[in-house]
């Protein structure tokens, strides 16, 4: 069953609209006709078996992966995959979305502070002083005030992921995309990242989270998307779907992850 979030949570602005998204790698179709809408200030969790196309949807949203067809709209910036678009449009779309990766992808040759401040200078044209100040404020919010002069590889995985979150937030994105943010971390260390994400959700940030953390999906997200075989098979209230999934593939998947 697919419930549109607009019907369940009326009166919220649509920040992200993905329409008719399709993508294949050679002969292999990874996404076909994916449609989704994300409302302002909500957390959308995406779950499903690996290979379902969850990460590809996320990576198509900021054009890290070029879709074969379909349109992506984030905060009014629209890109139609089948039309030519300018670099200017591409950068505008990317700037409106912040992305957090499974493997953090911090810049190893810069201090933690520079990791967070340099993109602000290059992308938003902030001065170094302004960027450093904002970086410090965000690192403090992430509980990493004392790590500024360290290099990323001297930090634990959980700290690195929080730095990556700070780096993305520093550009004031409209929506945050999380691509399995805790999958490379020990369960215990993953918790500190989830805490930060909960705090971020509570502050009203619009978030799309690809995850295998079922309790996060159930308790924090307002909208749940289940994907399988390159398409969305179920969408709606997370508690409803987890309690009584309607699609047999969802039932199978949830049995596997919840009863282990």
């Amino acid at each position: 069953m697919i419930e549109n979030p607009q019907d369940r949570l009326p009166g919220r602005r649509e920040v992200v609209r993905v329409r008719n998204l399709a993508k294949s790698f050679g002969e292999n179709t990874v996404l076909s006709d994916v449609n989704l809408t994300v409302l302002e200030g909500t957390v959308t969790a995406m779950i499903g078996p690996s290979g379902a196309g969850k990460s590809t949807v996320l990576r198509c949203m900021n054009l890290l992966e070029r879709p074969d067809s379909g349109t992506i709209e984030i905060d009014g910036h629209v890109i139609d995959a089948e039309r030519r678009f300018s670099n200017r449009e591409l950068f505008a779309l990317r700037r409106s979305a912040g992305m957090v990766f499974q493997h953090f992808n911090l810049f190893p040759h810069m201090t933690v502070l520079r990791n967070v401040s340099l993109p602000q200078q290059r992308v938003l044209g902030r001065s170094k002083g302004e960027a450093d100040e904002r970086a410090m404020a965000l690192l403090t919010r992430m509980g990493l005030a004392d790590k500024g002069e360290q290099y990323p590889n001297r930090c634990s995985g959980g700290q690195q992921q929080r730095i990556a979150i700070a780096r993305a937030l520093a550009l004031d994105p409209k929506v945050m995309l999380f691509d399995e943010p805790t999958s490379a971390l020990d369960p215990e260390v993953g918790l500190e990242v989830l805490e930060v994400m909960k705090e971020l959700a509570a502050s009203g940030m619009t978030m799309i989270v690809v995850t295998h953390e079922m309790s996060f999906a159930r308790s924090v997200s307002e909208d749940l998307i289940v994907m399988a075989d390159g398409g969305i098979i179920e969408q709606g209230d997370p508690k409803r779907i987890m309690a009584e999934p309607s699609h047999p593939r969802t039932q199978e998947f949830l049995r596997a992850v919840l009863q282990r």
Partner: protein
Amino acid sequence: MLLTVLAGIPLTISVTAVALVIGTIGSLPLLFGILSGNRLVWLIARGIIDLCRGIPIVVWMFILFYGVTIGGTKLSAFGAAVLGLGIVSAAYLAEIFRGAISSVAAGQYEAARALGMTPRAVWGDIVGPQAWRVAIPGYTTYGIGLLKDSSIASTIGVAEMVFRSNSYARTTGEGITVFLVAAAIYVIVSVPVGVLSRKADEKLSAVVAR
């Protein structure tokens, strides 16, 4: 005798330095060529690299010295030497830099692009500096090799160390000693370069150690 050999040092050093500058600058267009997604551009760059590398330095120098005239004037011995060494260096250095760039993880490009960085920032701030660190040991090793290869310039009459040692040996008959002195000077010049390179490498890799 020592003074005779030492008098060749300025030319040895300047042939090496100028050739390294020519090689480094020349390697950049070749580098863009072999990183290009355009098949034709790639093929042309690949061809130039294989051609430049395939011809021995001494042959390059002879061709440039005896065969090339610009506006009626022949290339000077110094000019032919640095150009010959520079051409071969450009080809080798392009390969060294290409290897260094391919060692930078794909996640680095993705993170930089996802942040909305322009290609200029992606290369200038993220990929370039990381690749340069990887390239330093190979680059200095090549530089030390070039210092020794600069002796090939003696074959077309550039009065660097080997040229002077050779003429000293011929006039006095003291063959072995003068070349031992020259050998010692090559070592004395190249060891500090190697030490500096290793220091830089240790310092940089300590910072970004995995």
